[in-house]
């Protein structure tokens, strides 16, 4: 059982990281559905930086930086140019997939420069992800930055009138979102399944996106959800291993199908009323 939990936590870590980042972005009022693309960019950047530098740690940093830069594209389009955020995020996903498939060719089949240490049975990035949860809660609830994030996401006019730089706060949050997605991708290619493969995120970015909605943008709930989906991910392999005589393709659908199921359950009228969506989510701010 303990083993299963460790496996679920490891499989859930990409969700923890990516959804934490998206929580920052959405709390500030920017919807970024390009998580999948940013994760892929982070995965390839992490892999190649680690490969060239010989250190998985530097690889992780590379993943964060690449993810942030990808986020910056979305920030520029949605905050500065006020482009529709759903379209911009979709473009980011397609762009991430395309560019990593192209640039990633030389890395196909190479072994990753991976982590050699493990702590309590998990790789170091898992510990980082766990540590980021209380840190995020603290930043969002106790710091001036956190108050400003919530204010620009709810009522940017009020924040502006109080002297808060709305665009700056939003840019920072989109950068955090991109960086965390990049970290999530680099974790995949350096630690969870150490190699580079086209489209290796396999829809995890979309699941992380839905987790943000399930969790009502609360990091603690995002953690619980991430472990739950991690468990489903593992379950799928376990069931395949047991040889149920069910097509593995059907079993591989479990995480995705359950996303739809959970989404339908949580969207019932009764529950939806309690999920506080930031009032200005998805709306550009024009003075």
């Amino acid at each position, binding site marked *: 059982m303990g083993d299963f939990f460790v496996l679920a936590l490891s499989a859930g870590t990409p969700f923890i990281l990516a959804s934490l980042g998206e929580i920052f972005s959405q709390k500030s009022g920017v919807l970024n559905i390009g998580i999948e693309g940013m994760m892929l960019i982070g995965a390839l950047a992490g892999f190649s930086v680690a490969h060239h530098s010989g250190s998985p740690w530097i690889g992780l940093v590379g993943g964060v930086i690449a993810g942030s830069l990808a986020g910056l594209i979305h920030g520029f389009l949605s905050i500065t140019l006020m482009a529709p955020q759903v379209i911009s995020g979709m473009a980011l996903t397609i762009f991430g997939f395309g560019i990593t498939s192209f640039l990633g060719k030389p890395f196909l089949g190479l072994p990753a420069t991976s982590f050699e240490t493990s702590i309590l049975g998990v790789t170091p990035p898992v510990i980082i992800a766990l540590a980021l949860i209380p840190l995020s809660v603290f930043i969002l609830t106790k710091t*001036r930055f956190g108050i400003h994030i919530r204010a620009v996401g709810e*009522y940017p*006019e009020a924040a502006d009138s*109080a002297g808060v730089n709305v665009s700056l706060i939003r840019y920072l949050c989109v950068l955090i979102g991109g960086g965390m997605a990049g970290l999530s991708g680099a974790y995949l290619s350096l630690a969870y399944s150490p190699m580079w493969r086209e489209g290796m995120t396999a829809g995890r970015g979309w699941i992380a996106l839905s987790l943000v909605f399930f969790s009502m943008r609360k990091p603690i709930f995002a953690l619980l959800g991430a472990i739950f989906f991690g468990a489903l991910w593992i379950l799928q392999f376990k069931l395949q291993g047991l040889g149920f005589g069910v097509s593995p393709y059907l079993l591989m659908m479990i995480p995705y199908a359950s996303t739809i199921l959970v989404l339908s359950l949580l969207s019932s*009228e009764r529950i939806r009323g309690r999920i506080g969506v930031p009032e200005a989510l998805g709306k550009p701010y024009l003075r």
Partner: protein
Amino acid sequence: MRSDTVVELKGITKAFPGVVANKDIDFELNRGEVHALLGENGAGKTTLMNILSGLLRPDDGEIRIFGKPVSFRSPREAISLGIGMVHQQFLLVPSLSVVENIVLGHKEEGFIPNLRNVEKKIKTLSENYNLEIEPRAKVWQLSAGEKQRVEILKALYREAQVLILDEPTSVLAPQEAEGLINALREMTSEGHLSVVFVSHKLPEVTAVSDRITVLRRGRVVAAMENDNVDYAVLSNVMVGRELQKSVSPRRREKGGILLEVEDLVVPDDRGVPAVDGVSFTLSEGEILGIAGVAGNGQKELGEALIGLRSATRGRVIFCGKEITDITPRQAIEKKIGFIPEEPLTIGLAGGLSVADNLILDTYRSSRFLRKGLLDYNKIEGFSRGIVDTHGIKTPDLGLQVGHLSGGNVQRLILGRELSRDLKLLVANHPTKGLDVGAADFVWEKLISLGEEGVGIILISEDLEEIQTLSNRIAVMYEGELVGVEESGRVDRKKIGLLMMGVGKEE
């Protein structure tokens, strides 16, 4: 020694495309006084205060704060010099607590603000100035009056020495407004704080201020000490013509029953009952005033009667027939008219022309058609008639309605609804945001409509309006009608209390 003049505006001029909002305005604020800025809508009060608070820059003129000439580039700079403005629309984040809203944007608190300290400071301030507030409450839980106190505390926390209040009582129940006026008098009595009180309501201006400056069409037309000021004189100066106070409630013969509402329940947008078991009757030619603070179900009640919202329980009977599940189109056909609270969101299409909007409800009528197509000659003739009789100021009939001023929008919707042959009119805040002259016009129309036998449901927060026009008065509180009375017997204070949920039917 600091000078006794805190703020001095000299020769302030500000023009917007096509209109001079402020022309050569002089204004002075002394330490510890409440100086009222009085004027109709569009007189340039808000423009002047936006200049003083750093939101706008004047084209010409000089601003002196404590005798020093200044030129603000942003509200921030004005705040740092001790000028705090409380806008008509509250600039507070609903999901944040009172404390969080107050530290928002305040750099002095550091990266991790000590909210306990801030809370203590707020408590001290609120005790000193008699502005009671629960610092940990979330702003969405607060009433309008409490939100206003938070705005004032926010300014005081930033050590404001000048407080500008833009139409502060427009969102308050009468008792809350009285409380505000008392608080302002007290706050200024020690001489640390000076207040500019922007308003178009004469009684509150004379109740609160030491001095009064009157603006009309962007110019100062009078400045006086508040000392035995005569309302009639003041309103003449403000409006620029003799105001006929001819409107008054008139006794009328009671007609037959026009509308019966039984135990009506109407949900709001979230599905929670906003109207919770309301019953009343309305006779022909009767004006029933429904008073209440916004958000107590008045809007939903009005919308249900004209078919914009469906009831989950109860019945509505109109002229002997049940119309509970009526559609807006059927309501129009049954001669029910509607004046919405915000015409540009519900009754009119801002992007369409004046003429198009005037036929929005009746374009199907054959009088506008020729061979099945709209006949614009006829439409223009019809529109021209309404524009002339209702004094709608528009350069031409093709102008987009969104570009009209608030008063003209109100005249337009009134003109359109009255152009039909009505039996029932649901008027939701028909004079909200209108100045004295325009409001007078609307009142006249409603009264004469009542005399013609049309039943009117008048929903308003303005007690004077309700009392002047209505035959009977009811108060709506939390979805229920409390206390329906003949208007002659109504005690204003009692209505005010009912509006705040005090003294519900014993």
